[in-house]
């Protein structure tokens, strides 16, 4: 198929026209047919749930939401009735994560695109624009088992730090710093590290970006996000949110030695963190992961 023909087909499909996918669409989820494989992140454990690292013990699971508000009723989504919703507990630092797990068959460029928005729980009649601490996106990747030299697990993390301790920040950040790895249980087979910890985040160069929060907490405007990464070189290729193309050419993803059972892993994550004693919500209208076509 010629590229022109492919573009014409993509642009004539109202579901796909708002995306810019690479040649092969690995998945397209709009959450009007269920959660489509997006599930909760759970910490590793052996024998007892008490063996889980403390930070993992209360990661909140995703759900489907039609964005019903107390004042305006149902908002719905950009292209349907349901979004994937991540909701924290009502306390500072509480995190909710949605993860979709697969493996890759070609070590080349991949592109994750999403339409998302975030808002705090409406518990008071105020703007609450600093109640959500952060929303983020990351891949959890590991090279092929055919990799001979220095096999690695690679975890590119990017977050939008909306606010911290009640003060607006509105800046994209990344994380390269490795978190401590702990043995879990006694078998020697299970390890765990809390890579979403608050330590180690660094401002993305030129990463300031003010989003359309809108005037009150029950109004939702959808944002476009795109993260490009190369599975061959395990490096960032690009990152944009709405009209801002951010420079990721000089930043490194988190790297740790390869683990014994994660070969060709391709996991995509989104998460949200609360900054206060009300719940923080991240909504995903739709997510598309695409890849370069193998030969």
């Amino acid at each position, binding site marked *: 198929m010629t590229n022109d023909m492919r573009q014409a087909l993509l642009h004539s499909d109202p579901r796909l026209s708002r995306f810019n996918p690479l040649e092969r669409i690995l998945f397209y989820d709009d959450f009007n047919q269920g959660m489509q494989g997006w599930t909760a992140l759970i910490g590793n454990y052996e024998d007892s*749930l*008490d063996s*889980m690292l403390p930070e993992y013990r209360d990661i*909140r*699971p995703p759900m489907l939401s*039609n964005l019903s508000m107390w004042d305006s009723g149902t908002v719905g989504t950009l292209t349907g009735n*349901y979004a994937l919703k991540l909701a924290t507990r009502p306390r500072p630092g509480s995190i909710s994560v949605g993860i979709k797990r697969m493996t890759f068959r070609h070590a080349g460029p991949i592109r994750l695109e999403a339409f998302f928005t975030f808002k705090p729980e*409406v518990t008071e009649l105020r703007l609450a624009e600093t109640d959500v601490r952060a929303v983020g996106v990351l891949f959890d990747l590991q090279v092929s088992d055919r990799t001979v030299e220095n096999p690695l697990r690679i975890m590119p993390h990017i977050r939008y730090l909306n606010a911290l301790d009640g003060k607006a920040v509105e800046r994209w950040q990344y994380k390269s710093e490795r978190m401590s790895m702990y043995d879990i249980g006694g078998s020697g087979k299970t390890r765990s590290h809390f890579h979403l910890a608050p330590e180690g985040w660094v401002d993305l160069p030129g990463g300031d970006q003010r989003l359309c929060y809108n005037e009150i907490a029950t109004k939702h405007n959808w944002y476009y996000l795109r993260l490009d990464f190369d599975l061959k070189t395990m490096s960032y290729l690009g990152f944009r949110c709405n009209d801002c193309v951010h420079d990721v050419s000089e930043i490194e993803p988190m790297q740790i030695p390869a683990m014994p059972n994660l070969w060709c892993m391709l996991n995509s994550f989104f998460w949200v963190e609360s900054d206060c004693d009300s719940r923080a919500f991240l909504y995903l209208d739709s997510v598309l992961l695409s890849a370069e076509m193998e030969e």
Partner: protein
Amino acid sequence: MRQSATATVELNTEWRGKFTAEPFEVAWASEAIYFIRALESEGVPGGVNARVQISPDGTHWCDEGTHVPLPAAPGITYARITHFGGWLRLVGELPNGAHLKVIVHLVLKS
């Protein structure tokens, strides 16, 4: 084919005194079962229940009328619910000195 999903709304959570299981959005579903699995149960007398609550907005809650028995020993209990609108949660209160360590599943079907 009907849609279905199981949510683990509490995992290894300690309940003492008053408790609330995290709210969950269920507008797409028409039937639900709450399961309460007690990993630990101490001092919980028989006949103590959690109450199912519904809400129009996830903020304002009222009793739906269904009760889920709280396990008086390690084990699992349940209650079925229908016609619940957009939100569900569980609330309850344990007597002084009682505690539960629970996994709460919400099993949903369209």
